[in-house]
């Protein structure tokens, strides 16, 4: 069981900054995120895109903002449960919560801060009638253990970075790699596109474009896929394969959090914006893009503000007996849980002769 003061769900900018504000109050944080890396949308969707409305940064790349936040919170030593989705919540008699992930990891905390953005990222599934039937029977949406595909034949569909990168990787692992895409053009890093072309010329990747998978065949396990070339049913053909891996990117879904008994409006969690961004369940807060209130704006800078107020409220809840006055970091410095201390250099007091 992982124990912490504030359990944050979502490692996007709002969740990460909450660690900093909590740290100033000597509260420890642990973050759960369904993605394998911190940063949320910024890391997953647009790491190379500039953001222009972060106060004090005329321009910052989304990926750099994440790196900066990670650096800023480092001394507060947040724990991470990455690649797992928060699934169930249980309220204990003392008012604290246990949150379990889809992988069974349990977290215990008196305060929950949902900073889930648009939700957890789930694979986009192509519209193929019997796709669901073959899930885990030859159809995979994510590659967790590449060894599974050793000496197996694999058909990958998609035209983005993940389709390109996994085709390249599996070319050395699988017995056969076929990459199917609806267009002749791929959207990805230049070196990935070039590498796929090289591997194609070497005969290590079979490229079929423009084409798409329209049907799956097999009984207990996938045996083959039906590929339609040029959008023309006359050109349909069957290709035997052990695995079919559709890689059409990820799309966010609110997911299991929607069933936690929280008040939901417009696909977001209603919170009290007059005070502390608490939800209808005391002890559970929602901050950043995942919440809604009158006048809500889904901006990173608003998420930072919400995280800050949420931490103050969380402190009061955890330490109802303590008096507290907010201290400026310029005055109090930043003392990490790792023993480091950052503070403003003392001014020299010296007479001039």
């Amino acid at each position, binding site marked *: 069981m992982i124990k912490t003061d504030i359990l944050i769900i979502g490692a996007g900018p709002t969740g990460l900054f909450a660690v900093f504000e909590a740290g100033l109050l000597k509260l420890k944080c642990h973050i759960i995120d369904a993605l394998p890396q911190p940063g949320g949308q910024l890391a997953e*969707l647009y790491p190379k895109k500039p953001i222009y409305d972060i106060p004090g940064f005329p321009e910052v790349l989304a990926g750099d903002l994440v790196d900066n936040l990670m650096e800023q919170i480092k001394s507060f030593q947040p724990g991470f449960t990455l690649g797992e989705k928060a699934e169930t919540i249980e309220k204990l008699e003392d008012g604290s919560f246990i949150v379990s992930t889809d992988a069974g990891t349990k977290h215990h905390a008196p305060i929950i801060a949902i900073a889930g953005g648009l939700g957890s990222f789930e694979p986009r599934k192509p*519209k193929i009638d019997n796709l669901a039937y073959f899930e885990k029977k030859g159809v995979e949406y994510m590659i967790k253990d590449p060894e599974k595909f050793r000496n197996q034949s694999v058909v990958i569909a998609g035209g983005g970075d993940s389709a390109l990168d996994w085709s390249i990787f599996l070319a050395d692992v699988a017995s056969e790699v076929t990459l199917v895409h*609806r*267009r002749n053009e791929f959207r990805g890093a230049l070196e990935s596109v070039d590498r796929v072309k090289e591997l194609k010329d070497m005969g290590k990747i079979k490229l079929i474009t423009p084409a798409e998978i329209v049907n799956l065949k097999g009984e207990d396990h996938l045996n083959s896929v039906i590929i339609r070339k040029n959008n023309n049913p006359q050109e349909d053909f069957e290709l035997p394969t052990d695995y079919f891996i559709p890689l059409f990117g990820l799309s966010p879904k609110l997911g299991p959090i929607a069933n936690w008994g929280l008040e939901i409006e417009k*696909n977001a969690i209603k919170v009290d914006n007059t005070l502390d961004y608490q939800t209808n369940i005391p002890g559970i807060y929602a901050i950043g893009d995942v919440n*809604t209130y009158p006048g809500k704006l889904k901006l990173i800078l608003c998420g930072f503000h919400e995280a800050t107020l949420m931490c103050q409220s969380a402190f009061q809840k955890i330490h109802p007996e303590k008096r507290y006055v907010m201290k400026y970091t310029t005055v109090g410095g930043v003392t990490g849980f790792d023993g480091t201390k950052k503070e403003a250099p003392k001014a020299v007091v010296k007479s001039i002769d």
Partner: protein
Amino acid sequence: MDVILTIIDRDGVEHRVEAPTDMAMNLMEVVRSYELAPEGTIGVCGGMAMCASCQCYVKSNHELPEKSDDEEAMLSEAFNVEEDSRLGCQIHITESLEGLVVELAPEE
């Protein structure tokens, strides 16, 4: 100046709406501003042509600006794509859109 657009929502209901040409708006934003699709089901990526939640079918004969590479690439990976599919976020509201008729594609 405003233009009048007809937007057919995901339930098949037609809406005639006024869209401003001087607010740097795109079609996805117009749909959101009139709440013709539930929040969170349209414009998920914010308008970067990185999701297809604002996909729509252009039903009138308006000549629209060519698709950018980004839009083309996204549509090539989207589902329910038809010949007349466009991403709403990539269609900027200009005077030439007067009378445009679009239908929102189903939610993925």
